[in-house]
């Protein structure tokens, strides 16, 4: 069993068997993370560069930990302290890094399609850690892993993605991945944040959050990206909270049992109220733990391909 591609650029078009293999392999690494020595020698001698052109806490630390726990040599590259400041192009940066003999590149960039471009520039395995508003495949994989761990399956589950769908790479990767795995996906948010042709991806649109809660087994609540000018899409944060914020009062009113995911970082009091963010329905911190295992699985499966 091995993956059908030597890169992970997104979940669009990735076959079901590949996703299944990554999720099953992650179970192994989940066990490694529970050991007293959380380290296996599997990728010894491999060099992996983390190229982060956009800020990140969780994803970068998660990838770095995953690399170290597989005994790979991890190198971090932060744009702020690099020659990018001197005007070096991405192409030149990557070519120079490749000349130092690296095996894999993990890249986050604000421009969609950057990981795809890298596959044409160098021989290393490329992993997309988020490209613009396109895809964020490892986040979707860890979301699916977490749902499967909690509810035992993905097929037939009703998952609703809530928030700014139009500007979310997490939403897009989740839609592709969940649809492939046989889940029923819907999206919910202010109509200004729902892309026009989203139904073509085979998802339902729900404009009323109470209806979304009643209809779904799982809510994947996205962060309102205030830094991406989210405020231009609704009149005020108070109004967003009133119509789309998830509060425990709202959950109790609609239903008793639901699973809540959030990719972090949370805007407490905006998309999730504080008591929901710490409450019994959410698995936000489990998602973070699972993220390391899922990334180890991806690195292992790509790094040991011949």
């Amino acid at each position, binding site marked *: *069993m*091995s993956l059908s591609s030597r890169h992970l650029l997104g979940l669009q078009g990735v076959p079901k068997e590949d996703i299944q293999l990554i999720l099953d*392999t992650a*179970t*192994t690494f989940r*066990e*490694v993370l529970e*050991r*007293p*020595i959380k*380290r*296996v*020698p*599997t990728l010894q001698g491999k060099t992996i560069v983390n190229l982060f052109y956009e800020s990140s806490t969780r994803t970068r630390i998660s990838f770095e930990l995953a690399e170290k726990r597989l005994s790979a040599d991890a190198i971090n590259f932060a744009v702020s302290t690099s020659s990018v400041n001197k005007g070096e192009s991405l192409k030149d940066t990557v070519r120079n890094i490749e000349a130092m003999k690296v095996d894999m590149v993990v890249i986050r960039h604000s421009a969609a399609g950057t990981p795809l471009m890298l596959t044409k520039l160098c021989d290393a395995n490329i992993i997309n850690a988020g490209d613009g508003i396109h895809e964020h495949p490892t986040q979707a994989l860890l979301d699916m892993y977490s749902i499967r761990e909690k509810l035992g399956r993905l097929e037939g589950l009703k998952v609703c993605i809530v928030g700014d769908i139009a500007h979310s790479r997490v939403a897009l990767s989740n839609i592709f991945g969940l649809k492939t795995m046989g889940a029923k996906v819907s999206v919910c948010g202010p109509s200004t944040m729902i892309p026009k042709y989203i139904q073509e991806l085979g998802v339902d649109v729900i404009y009323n959050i109470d209806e979304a809660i009643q209809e779904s087994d799982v809510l994947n609540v996205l962060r309102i990206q205030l830094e991406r000018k989210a405020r231009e899409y609704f009149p005020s944060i108070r109004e967003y909270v009133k119509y789309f914020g998830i509060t425990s009062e709202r959950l109790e009113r609609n239903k008793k049992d639901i699973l809540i995911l959030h990719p972090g970082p949370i805007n407490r009091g905006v998309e999730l109220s504080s008591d929901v963010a710490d409450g019994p329905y959410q698995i936000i911190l489990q998602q973070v733990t699972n993220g390391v295992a899922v990334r180890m699985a991806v690195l*292992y*499966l790509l790094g*040991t*391909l*011949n």
Partner: protein
Amino acid sequence: MNIKAKLVDKDGIERMITRIAHEILEKNKGSKNLVLIGMRTRGEFIARRLQKKIKEIEGVDIPLGVLDVTLYRDDFRTRLKQPQVSVSDITFDINEKDIILVDDVLYTGRTVRSALNALMDFGRPSTIQLCILVDRGHRELPIRADFVGKNIPTSLNEEIKLKVEEYDGEDAIYLVEAEKK
């Protein structure tokens, strides 16, 4: 699979396990401090039978764990097929324990080498003793077994196939012609 001979049958394997269980208890002066670690896949089932046998003899249930060594292998770069990984299941503390590491066939010794590395990541046992049902020779590393079911010297174009009821549906040891690489 081109079978050349059936070397051991069900009763033979049963007798081997009975004898090895006694040897383990003799060498370790009882079952105190013993733990069994079976190596996936068939080692696990052999370990379970040893556990049962030791219970019959001494009346004690000794802890049993399962080890998957895929992540510790040294042949990732040379194999054509990516091995499927599965979960190790060792729920007890192995520090200061006497470990009986159980596998079906001992050949190059590389799997045992990976297992030793893996066990060291779980703790620091006081001893690790190796128990195997068939030693077919051709070691590539300085490794030997403490408890051996049967020594079967083979040529390099032969292989030993050990089958267990729980996994393969029968108990037997076959000598087969090696599959062409």
